[in-house]
């Protein structure tokens, strides 16, 4: 079992390494992608600067806490898009029959597929998340927690992307459902949860679990709460299991395709 994990890790590492080699072939594009993503994330902060110049408190959040929320959103997004890019276009992989190449390999199909490409711009998100954290204020304990939550959040968003995209095994055009679902999560990720009430708030902690991926971590970072930490870990594990189960069930419905394709 341990050897299997070690071997899978080696393939995943090599896959990311080779994808990085490809991106580095054009250094100008590589660096500008990262730079412009940091710039894009930073620009979004401007609206909050304007809002906080009018009011000191937004939904129970101070400006620095909103900044941290932005950092968390960028960090979780960055982790999921950089390491697991293919989970976001898994529908296309399924519909075009590109899963064949991973099925005939003696490795975990889902993991091999989703780690087979990287999104360079997502590195900009990860860097932005780190910059924002250092502006918020460094503390070793919160820093480690912050990194941990970026990873669990990234994994949860990936799991949701897998679940939604796996619907392609059963329905045509499921990629549209997946796109809308992911956009919904991203849209809510940067707003303080205090501004949402009633059913919207309930939705954010259940169907659109941005509450678990972003709001709970911020609450734990502001004031440590072991119960909230456990909830975050449990939901993360639950979503991982659910994503894996749905993908595995769908795989039995996979119909492949004879479309010409290349691995680029």
């Amino acid at each position, binding site marked *: 079992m341990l*050897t299997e994990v070690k071997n899978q890790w080696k393939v995943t590492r090599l896959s990311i390494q080779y994808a990085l080699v490809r991106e580095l*072939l054009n250094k100008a594009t590589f660096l500008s992608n990262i730079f412009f993503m940091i710039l894009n994330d930073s620009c979004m902060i401007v609206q909050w600067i304007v809002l906080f110049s009018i009011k000191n408190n937004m939904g129970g959040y101070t400006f620095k806490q909103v900044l941290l929320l932005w950092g968390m959103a960028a960090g979780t997004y960055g982790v999921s898009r950089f390491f697991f890019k293919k989970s976001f276009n898994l529908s296309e992989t399924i519909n075009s029959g590109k899963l064949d190449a991973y099925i005939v390999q003696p490795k975990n199909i889902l993991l091999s597929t989703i780690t087979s490409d990287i999104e360079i711009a997502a590195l900009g998100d990860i860097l932005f998340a780190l910059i924002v954290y250092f502006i918020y204020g460094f503390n070793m304990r919160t820093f480690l927690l912050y990194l941990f939550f970026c990873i669990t959040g990234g994994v949860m968003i990936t799991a949701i992307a897998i679940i939604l995209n796996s619907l392609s095994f059963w329905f045509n055009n499921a990629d549209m459902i997946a796109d809308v679902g992911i956009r919904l999560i991203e849209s809510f990720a940067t707003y303080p949860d205090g501004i949402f009430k009633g059913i919207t708030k309930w939705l954010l902690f259940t169907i659109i679990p941005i509450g678990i991926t972003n709001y709970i971590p911020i609450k734990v970072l502001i004031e440590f709460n072991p119960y909230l930490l456990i909830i975050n870990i449990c939901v993360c594990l639950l979503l991982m299991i659910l994503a894996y189960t749905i993908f595995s069930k769908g795989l039995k419905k*996979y119909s492949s395709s004879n479309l010409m394709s290349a691995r680029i």
Partner: protein
Amino acid sequence: MFMAIIEVKKLSKTFKVKIKDKGLKGSLKSIIKPKYKTVKAVKNISFAVERGEIIAFIGPNGAGKSTTIKMMTSILYPDKGTIRVLGYDPTKDRKKLSYEIGTVFGQKEQLWTHLTPYDNFKFFGAIYDIPEPVVEKKIEELKMLFELDEFINTPVRNLSLGQRIRCEIVASLIHEPKVLFLDEPTIGLDPVVKENIRTLIKRMNKEYKTTIFLTSHDVGDIEKLCKRVIIINDGQLVLDDTMENLKYHYLNKKIVEAKMKERVNLDDEDGITIIKDKGYNLKIEVDTTKRSVADALKLLNPDNIIDINISNIPLEDIISDIYKSKDL
């Protein structure tokens, strides 16, 4: 005593395909009330393959070849029937089976195009958990066998199609598979490169005793590589025989081309079909179930013949006839 390395019994696979009427109205209707039809891609087929064989698995487009291969390689789940490849059930033992088989899909590229073949082979070595020194040795060995020396360090995207296919085959051989599935490996290649690939496949079969399961629309691939042929049409197995039997006994027809001193009229002769009659040059097809070749020669009159060539009916024609025949 030979041992069956692949056993397929009563295998069936159906696909549910959505159908819609023409135009925008049809599209809207299909959203509200979708209609589906069931396409039987593979219907109750059975066959076995022995160790070291090179099998041609052929049929027209949409016959069910790729579907069958995909079921044998764990890509698709069968609806009915059983498959055993090297004793493994592809639906249950995917990982174990993957270590033992190799696949090359001519229409689908498995290699990373920005990497060199060497880096790709190292990556495939990692996929199959092969220790570094062993991979290095294997790459060296396959480099010699497949003559990759000139371009092993050139990025795949800069290789010609023929070079790329050679690399695809090598990548699928890194883990020394016992069975290699080749799905149209020579598609789009020029005749010289095709010949080269065929020689390499033959050499590989001889050197490593690899069982090769080949699908191809190229009669040359089938004729030059395979001793046995399985023909599938409309999802059904229509022929499973040796190449020799297929060529010499299946249609029992010979082509006779003769250069004559004088014209001969064979218009109403039973068992003889005139393919070409250019006066002194005659090309006829003799149905040996109705008339022997010797009889046909007598009709031509041996003293009247300047030159003669007797050949088997081209394999391509035999296969086309089998494809067209639905009552087999």
